[in-house]
């Protein structure tokens, strides 16, 4: 047997190596980061765990998180986030991924307790960018009072993703006596919105398309759990809550009207639209009723509780500009109708897809 010929010793150039490689300071995501091996573990240990904190449930790093809800009613929700750009005025995809699921839970009256985080990364994205996203998630989670307790990472080939996609699932506990769902909308309910609409959608459009509207418009991205707590403290008998994200206020109200078989009548001039949003929409030919929000809620409240709930909302920082914008009616079931400032009426329809800027 011939002696094995060993390669010549010399300087090692790792740049041409392929995954999996146990490189701690990998400057860019490679396919191996999603391979479930050492690189995956490094990404979890060095990027995600420090960002999310070291709670005992997450630290166990099991395939699933084991939770002890103590016999409470549980709300469970999931959402995926594919926003571009990843960072925008007033937030980031990380903030959205946390707040979006926290808010979905809050709209059932549930206080979010635990979140999962699944990251789909594109080969070649900078690890430092992933770390910034993770840090934003961690900060948002701490602010919302929720723990990230489990997660997953996959990497797709370059050109098959948009840098970073995130999915979060969340579990929250619903207090006894709370039953909040679209089907509970009743004629006679008042319709409230927690603040000015359209900020998130216009903020994203302004950075995505390079449009400038004279003033910088920041996203309203926020977790609404504490605002819902404040409302429930007034009465557990909130009928419907909804966060008007994609499709905006119009889509949310339309969905509620359809689900409950009721009509909704809005007073158009009562809906708070900040002037920069109104101006941007006027320039682009968009309707602020259809523009996305990420830190607002719509509430259907029994008339007798309206004043107290409105006062509680206005006493909370996320509800300072809360307003009564309309009422739930028995007429025109399934439809939302706005009364214009001039005394006319118009149907507020469900959007088909994204709004398209008009030609002129």
């Amino acid at each position, binding site marked *: 047997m011939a002696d094995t010929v060993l390669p010549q010793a010399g300087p090692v150039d790792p740049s041409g190596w392929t995954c999996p490689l146990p490189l701690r300071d990998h400057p860019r995501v490679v396919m191996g980061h999603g391979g479930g091996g050492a690189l995956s573990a490094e990404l979890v240990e060095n990027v995600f765990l420090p960002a999310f904190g070291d709670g005992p449930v997450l630290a166990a790093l099991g395939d699933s998180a084991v939770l002890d809800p103590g016999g409470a009613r549980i709300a469970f929700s999931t959402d995926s986030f594919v926003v571009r750009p990843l960072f925008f005025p007033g937030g980031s995809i990380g903030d959205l991924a946390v707040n979006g699921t926290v808010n979905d839970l809050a709209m059932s009256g549930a206080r979010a307790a635990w979140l999962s985080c699944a990251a789909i990364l594109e080969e070649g994205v900078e690890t430092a960018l992933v770390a910034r996203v993770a840090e934003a998630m961690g900060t948002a989670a701490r602010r919302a009072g929720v723990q990230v307790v489990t997660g997953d990472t996959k990497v797709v080939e370059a050109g098959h993703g948009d840098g970073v996609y995130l999915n979060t699932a969340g579990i929250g506990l619903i207090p006894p006596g709370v039953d909040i769902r679209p089907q509970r909308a009743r004629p006679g309910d008042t319709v409230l919105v927690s603040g000015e609409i359209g900020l998130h959608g216009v903020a994203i459009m302004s950075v995505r*398309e390079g*449009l400038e509207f004279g003033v910088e418009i920041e996203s309203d991205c926020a977790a609404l759990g504490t605002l819902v707590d404040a409302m429930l403290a007034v009465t557990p008998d909130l009928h419907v809550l909804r966060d008007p994200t994609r499709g905006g206020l119009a889509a949310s109200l339309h969905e509620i009207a359809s689900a409950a078989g009721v009509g909704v009548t809005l007073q158009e001039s009562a809906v708070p639209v900040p*002037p920069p949003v*109104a*101006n941007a929409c*006027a320039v*682009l*030919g968009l309707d602020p009723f259809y523009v996305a929000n990420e830190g607002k809620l719509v509430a259907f409240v029994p008339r007798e509780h309206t004043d107290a709930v409105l006062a509680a909302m206005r006493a909370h920082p996320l509800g300072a500009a809360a307003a009564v914008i309309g009422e739930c009616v028995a007429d*025109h079931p399934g*439809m939302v*109708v706005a009364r*214009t*400032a*001039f*005394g*006319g*009426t*118009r*149907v507020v*329809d469900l959007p*088909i*897809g994204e709004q*398209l*800027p*008009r*030609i*002129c």
Partner: protein
Amino acid sequence: MRYVTEFQDPELARGLVEDIRAAVTRPWALMEVCGGQTHTIIRHGIDQLLPEGVELIHGPGCPVCVTPLEVIDKALAIASRPGVIFCSFGDMLRVPGTDRDLFRVRGEGGDVRVVYSPLDALRIARDHPDREVVFFGIGFETTAPPNAMAVHQARRQGVRNFSTLISHVRVPPAIEAIMTSPDCRVQGFLAAGHVCSVMGTGEYPELAEKHRVPIVVTGFEPLDILEGVRRTVRQLERGEHTVDNAYPRAVPPGGNPAARAMLEDVFEVTDRAWRGIGVIPRSGWRLSPRYRDQDAEHRFDVTGIDTREPAECRSGEVLQGLLKPNECGAFGTVCTPRTPLGATMVSSEGACAAYYLYRRLGAPAPGAPAPAPVPSAVPSSAVPTPVEANPVG
């Protein structure tokens, strides 16, 4: 926003409505030329405020709606080609061609991009010298100057991979065609303010005199519309027929000389087909011969396309003011923004879309009888065309 919110004041609107009520002694039918005005009227319920007898008829001024199906199909064919980046204003993407729209082309792998300006398309061409970049240049006198500028700049900068698919239309010949129709009911026009901000008001006195019809240049906010109605009704009641500028904050009498010079440099007047209406003589622009190599129709072979309009669509009558959208039997039933038969239901400035979006409560119940179709408002001499050969869209 200065010069906008002041023109949305409900109190002032009430005053204008009172003035109109005081002035009106008999019924009048006025046409708002522009689709943007139609949407303001329907969205704010302006027509509901007017005294009975003052009827607003929706005109042909939606650039998306009047773009011929044949041009849409050409756009779809070009956008489907490998190596092409097809740039368009957003609201053209959902307009149905014969068998699909630009969204579908994008879903099938075509590189279709929404731009906010034709100069953005030119920038994309500079950034992708290895691709053919085509801009979809449609619209009235409002969008024609920036489209001309993009063509002019491409030539000046030596950007050889940039071309445009042009389907521009002009308002005055459309007014002429409407007024010479035997079915015409229009007694006064609210002219499109942004068109006049480019072209001025010089094209209108001859029309007003010839047809003895008042033409009031009108803006797009609720008070603009009411002021336009007030001035038009006053003229009608006095038996006058002059051109009046009720939008002086945006419209100088001579328009925008720089924009007009750009139009004259790049375009030449041509007969043009209007979707659902037919060819109107001298109603459009095309690239002048010296810019012909930047014409996408010349650069790409788009002949032999099988164009078929849905037979049940009556948007041509809507565009000519002969039919209200909710008087169409297909309205809100087989024809909705989700399943549009024609561009008037899908365009953000389309009259059918305005009625569907904002006025469905007043629509007839599904299956309610619709008025019988009426003949085209355009003189028959003007319509021996491929568009006329197909049913309206």
